[in-house]
């Protein structure tokens, strides 16, 4: 049973990752930076609970704030350029974050152990959950509270004027400008919300795996982040959830018997999926 709880944890965290890309995708912006905000959230939350002795919940709050702040800062220069340039800029940013953590050392002594991030070695011993006696089931529930919260938030956006404006910007920027929509404000706000969600996701990830390192936040993760909403379609948040369940649940677990060949299959399957159904599982709800 624990195995399924563990899988549900992974699905939950990846859904947060996907949702952070979803909101930006509504505005027509493809961002490969979400893994970067995810990484920042992970290290911030980890450091606060391990080095600062914080409880996890405020640590996650800090993750959200840090993710949001960095996203906002990155958004301003990056979103002033056209769509494809954004892909490149966010890719570069994501890789930059990964390289930063590859070089990042900050350790303190706790008893006779040294704890904290250690460059290429990574950040081990993020043991908030085990130290406080959380069971796998409880961790899973905890994660899903946040997932449900994020989905509810985005679903609410979708039904409000904000969500409609996001989609209008994604549809036709020129027309949106001409009816009075401030493009930069809208795009940066979406990026900020996405950064916050990714930050929380990263913080949760750090704590259920207990060990993070720079390679956990590479281009593959950045790809997963946007793949989920693209494959799931942009009509609703549930598409992203379905896509995560499909990829993580069915593909990764179901094809475990393939062993090493599994990695080969990811790329091939993405290519196949895009050829067969360019508009995603649930369709776009907007022009692809």
């Amino acid at each position, binding site marked *: 049973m624990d195995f399924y709880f563990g899988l549900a944890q992974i699905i939950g965290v990846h859904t947060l990752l996907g949702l952070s890309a979803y909101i930006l995708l509504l505005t027509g912006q493809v961002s490969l930076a979400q893994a970067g905000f995810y990484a920042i959230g992970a290290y911030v939350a980890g450091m606060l609970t391990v080095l600062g002795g914080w409880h996890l919940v405020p640590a996650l709050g800090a993750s959200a704030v840090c993710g949001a702040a960095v996203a906002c800062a990155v958004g301003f220069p990056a979103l002033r350029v056209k769509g494809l340039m954004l892909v490149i800029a966010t890719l570069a940013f994501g890789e930059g974050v990964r390289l930063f953590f590859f070089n990042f050392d900050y350790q303190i002594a706790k008893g006779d152990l040294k704890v904290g991030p250690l460059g290429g070695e990574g950040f081990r011993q993020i043991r908030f959950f085990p130290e406080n006696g959380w069971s796998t089931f409880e961790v899973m529930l905890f994660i899903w509270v946040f997932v449900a919260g994020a989905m509810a938030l985005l679903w609410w956006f979708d*039904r409000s004027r904000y969500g409609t404006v996001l*989609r209008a910007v994604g*549809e036709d920027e020129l027309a949106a400008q001409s009816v009075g929509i401030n493009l930069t404000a809208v795009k940066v706000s979406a990026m900020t919300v996405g950064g916050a969600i990714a930050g929380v996701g990263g913080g949760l990830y750090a704590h259920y795996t207990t060990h993070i390192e720079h390679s956990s936040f590479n281009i593959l993760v950045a790809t997963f982040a946007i793949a989920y909403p693209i494959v799931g379609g942009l009509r609703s948040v549930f598409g992203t959830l379905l896509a995560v369940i499909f990829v993580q649940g069915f593909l990764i677990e179901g094809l475990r018997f393939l062993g090493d060949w599994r990695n080969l299959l990811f790329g091939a399957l993405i290519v196949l999926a895009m050829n067969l159904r360019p508009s995603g599982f649930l369709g776009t709800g907007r022009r692809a």
Partner: protein
Amino acid sequence: MLELRSLSRHFGGVRAVDGLDLTVQEGQIFGLIGPNGSGKSTTVNVITGLFAPTAGSILFRGQDLAALPTHRRLRAGIARTFQNIRLFGQLSVWQNLWVAQNSAEDQARQGFFTRWLGGQRGVRDEIGPLLEFSGLAHKRDELAANLAFGEQRRLELARALAAKPRLLLLDEPAAGMNSEEIGQLRDRILKLRERGVTILLVEHVMELVMGVTDRIAVLNFGQKIAEGTPAEIQAHPAVRKAYLGGEKA
């Protein structure tokens, strides 16, 4: 209301608009006509801020527009329609109007939170009448991309009106319409004038222009070659020459 002073817009060597002087009084319906390529659409684009002028200035209600970006000009009271309709195809009719409610008045009326995160209920009183006016109430939830051509044109106009403009720039609204539709459009434009909207009408379809405008300016190669009442313009030899190449009408 609107004053263009020596307005110029060049694209490399092409002088799309060249030293244009124009004044539109409040409450007027002003027509802007000219052969294809004479600079009419470019003029509209410069007024709304999509292009910056190469020279000259634009004054709207006494205020120089140079510093204002496009979305701010909308809030200042200038709205436009597009020649090739640019609706938000995957949004419904209602949603197209909803996202366009960006006038200064609307911003003051509702708080930030309600305006952005509130639901549809708060704006029913505002959008309902717009739907009635454009005859689209029965298609409220239809995707804009699924509307018939004439309905799309009406939605384009309604969306411009959603912003409660003082000045409305219509870019060839009658293109592709039949006589009956043109008549309906004419009536709608006149009703808008009754409500106090000033209109700059860029158009090719003479049936509409001559029948609804107070004053007309004629462009050719980016320059104004004539200005006057519809009757004066119809008789003007330079206009005849520009359109018809010098033949007798």
